[in-house]
């Protein structure tokens, strides 16, 4: 299983980073890398390298699960299983 990178844009709040990383791990993915660039405009973003722990996990579902967290504005990256089968583009939630 390959590492995929998710780019997550979110509102800064106490616990926000912990909430994001915790969700990814609980939903069956290893977190392989974390990059939290400095923010200048009051918003924050996080680049997470993730790898599914078993086959059959669809990163499109993970992206939507991240997106439903309060304060998350956008989630980019990772290729859905369906898109992979169709040779498609990276997704967005």
């Amino acid at each position, binding site marked *: 299983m390959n590492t995929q990178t998710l780019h997550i844009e979110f509102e800064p709040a*106490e*616990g926000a980073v*912990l*909430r994001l990383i*915790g969700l990814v791990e*609980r939903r069956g993915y290893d977190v392989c890398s974390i990059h939290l660039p400095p923010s200048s405009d009051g918003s924050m973003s996080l680049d997470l390298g993730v790898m599914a722990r078993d086959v059959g996990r*669809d990163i*499109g*579902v993970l992206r*939507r*699960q991240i*997106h*439903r*967290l*309060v304060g998350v504005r956008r989630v980019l990256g990772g290729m859905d299983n*369906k898109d992979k089968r169709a040779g498609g583009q990276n997704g967005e*939630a």
Partner: protein
Amino acid sequence: MNAIPSTLQPDTSPKSAKAPTGAELVVSALRDQGVDMVFGYPGGAIMPLYDALPGSGLKHILVRHEQAAAFAADAYARATGKAGVCLATSGPGATNLLTGIANAYMDSVPLIAITGQVGTAVLGTDAFQEIDIFGMAMPVVKHSFLVRCAEDIPKIIAEAFQIATSGRPGPVLIDLPKDVAQTRVEKPNPATIKKTAHRPPDPVDIARAEALLKRAKRPVLYIGGGVVKARAVDALRRFNMLAGIPAVSTLTGLGVLPTDSADFYGMLGMHGAKTANTLVQEADLLLVCGARFDDRATGKLDTFAPNARVIHLDCDPAEIGKLRDADAGVPGDLKAALESLAVGILDISPWRARAQDSRTRHKFNYNAPGAGIFAPAFLEELSRKAGDRFVATCDVGQHQMWVAQHCHFSRPDAHLTSGGLGAMGYGIPAGIGAKLAHPENCVVTITGDGSIMMNIQELATIRRYGVALKIVLFDNSTLGLVRQWQELFYEENFSEVDLYDNPDFADVARSFGVEAFTVSRREQTSAAIERLLKTRGPVLAHVRIDPRENVWPLVPPGKSNAEMMERKS
């Protein structure tokens, strides 16, 4: 440094003619949200909030364990459609709430849990009764707040209610440090909340769904608890009155279609009805409404409804495709989606006839052998005689499945059960919450001798507030569902399930001041039900049943729903 920070010193000056404290702002913000009742238990760190309660107009129900506060608030929310509110102190008070918060999370119930916390100056120092409940609760809340600034309290409370009740509902935790609760606030920050509109369904998705429906020859409507949360019950009933699709339901979707509806074929899944599981397995299309393909419903997932295409309607886009790919996913407002689906009357007469024939052939036999009380027959008669005001709040175990299989429900809020979490101990606190929410209802807690001991102390709460809750306790002196699995799947190695040394439950109830009686013979069934229904105050019927009685049918663990067992082989 041993000195107590000045912010933690109690303010002993007169309350009047002063700016409100953070705690008083919490109370007024709750009132602004329409809250009239809260469930809780006081303690050190939440004392400022309890100091603000008297005279506030909020009715506080003092439970005897914080877990019961969360369960009661959960049931209050399910019964009213509003957010339930529970309170606890820091440390053990907060951790005791966690099971109830998790219960609300798993079943998407709007719940506001407010916990006291040690003062901000000592946060992170392992202070007395300090626990990072904000961190501990993260996996089981929709969102959480640690209040750092008293000025933000009105805004945070308003946001918490908005989050808890909008979209897919869920619990929100507000952790309130003691000094913040004690701080006087001259100028609170206003509560400006953006109303989030329901996302309408995409017409393209609807068109795709309609095309699939119109081609289907063997469609099944698969109803989940999400229909209730989306307030789409009436829309679903109208839709299916026209479409006439044979319908099945998950545990939490029971009552969306009345049990006695012509097109309703019962619960699917592990302890589902034979006809319900057969229809799903033979279907060429599943119209899934507010359900999430839970493993207890699907059995072995890759054998579930093997020939069916799937239309999946859900307000939560993250549920679509999570466990089963959808041929037509319709994320967004479920009520609007159902109202948009224009399929008219489907030409599925042979399929409907087959479903009806199956129901007739697999009708449950209530004539069990023996002279003891047969719990399924007891429950069927009870729910029928209790009528439309009947509400069952269940504990977890065999009795919970018998309720789902045999009670008649005319509406979804007539069946309150711990679905996703399966938390023993839910029944009595949930009964308290449901009865206080709607005193006019005939609320009956159905419990077992294992489950009741998880929150039996709440008999004191029933007594204190005169909650006219009826309790049916099925006592087989064993952990029945575990015993059943050990019998069937662990070669009768009965390990730690024997509760031979239970107390006399009728005596226990009476010692709490609750009327109680015991029955054990089948001919006592009708009289026991009459007595339950006629008793004006709280009453417990202690019903002894045969410990060898099992819940049938049953899909063995890891098996397909097509491999139901109807008796021990």
